[in-house]
């Protein structure tokens, strides 16, 4: 098995469907609620560029989509866009895998860098568990965790989630 020199892997199980989880991972009304108020701007096709934009319009991270198979798999290049020591490391690789299982989705996040002791991987290792915990709470209860969005951005997405025809 090939493991990159610096790796962060996180598995969580969420009571949802792959389609709902995929929507929450990609659509702005959801990402604002659990991903520090940020949205992802991209065409969502292979080869497309993407950027993670914060509520002030600042680009935090960006890169290129390498593989996209909704609602099961997403692989992209990820580079930090605002911290010089993180930008200097270049592209890391992020993989989302969504595995359906009897009313649940097993969601695996793998974030890798091709150099040992990567500062990028150390930084994201602190962020991902909080983001993914808030995402799980959002999908299972209709409201994200406090502190994962600026005031007012979490709103109530329960009705949106319940009315979706998935």
């Amino acid at each position, binding site marked *: *098995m090939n493991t990159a020199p610096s790796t962060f892997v*996180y*598995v*969580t*199980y*969420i*009571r949802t469907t792959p389609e709902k989880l995929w929507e929450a991972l990609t659509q702005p009304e959801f990402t604002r609620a659990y991903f520090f108020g940020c949205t992802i701007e991209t065409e969502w096709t292979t080869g497309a560029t993407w950027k993670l934009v914060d509520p002030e319009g600042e680009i935090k991270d960006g890169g290129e989509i390498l593989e996209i198979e909704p609602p099961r798999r997403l692989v992209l290049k990820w580079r930090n866009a605002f911290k010089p020591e993180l930008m200097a490391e270049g592209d890391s690789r992020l993989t989302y895998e969504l*595995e359906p*299982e*009897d009313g*649940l989705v097993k969601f*695996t996040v793998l974030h890798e860098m091709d150099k040992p002791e990567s500062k990028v991987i150390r930084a994201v290792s602190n962020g991902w*568990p*909080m983001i993914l*915990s*808030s995402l*799980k*709470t959002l999908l*299972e*209860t209709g409201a994200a*965790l*406090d*502190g994962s969005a600026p005031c007012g951005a979490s709103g109530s997405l329960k009705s949106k989630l319940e009315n979706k025809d998935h």
Partner: protein
Amino acid sequence: MTATDKTDFVYSILIRTTPEKLWEALTTGDFSEKYWFGFHVNFDLKPGGKMQILPPKGMEAHGDHAGEVLECEPGRKLVYTWQQADPAEIAAKRNGLSRVTYELFPMGDSVKLLLQHENLLSEDVNNDPTTFKGINNGWPAVLSSLKSLLETGEAMTFKSTCQA
């Protein structure tokens, strides 16, 4: 061959609950049966106290994980040793029992649970993503189910193919 073939597992999860409720769920057998594949935890919550994670019917081959509490600060920190039911060749490689630490950090309306499982062997990690065998596969399922139980009142049940 390196002198120590050691590996650690670290997992952090944020749960909308109170430290008291999370502590109770982590240390009480009636709760653990709901989220921990039916296993019943039994802690004598003081340093030197006995610890067991008793298997449900049909999974007795797992053994009772008999270990010992090393540190106990209710609502804040629990450290205990963990014994696996090892085949002989793996038991021979062990350098002492592995050690589990739970740390609870209040964060607004939530609690961050930091889990560390240390002094493991590389054999304790299972790279097959379709099984719950392996420390790296078991913990995320148990803690995801614990989170769902505390936040929604309902723990998770997993398909039987995943029963180790």
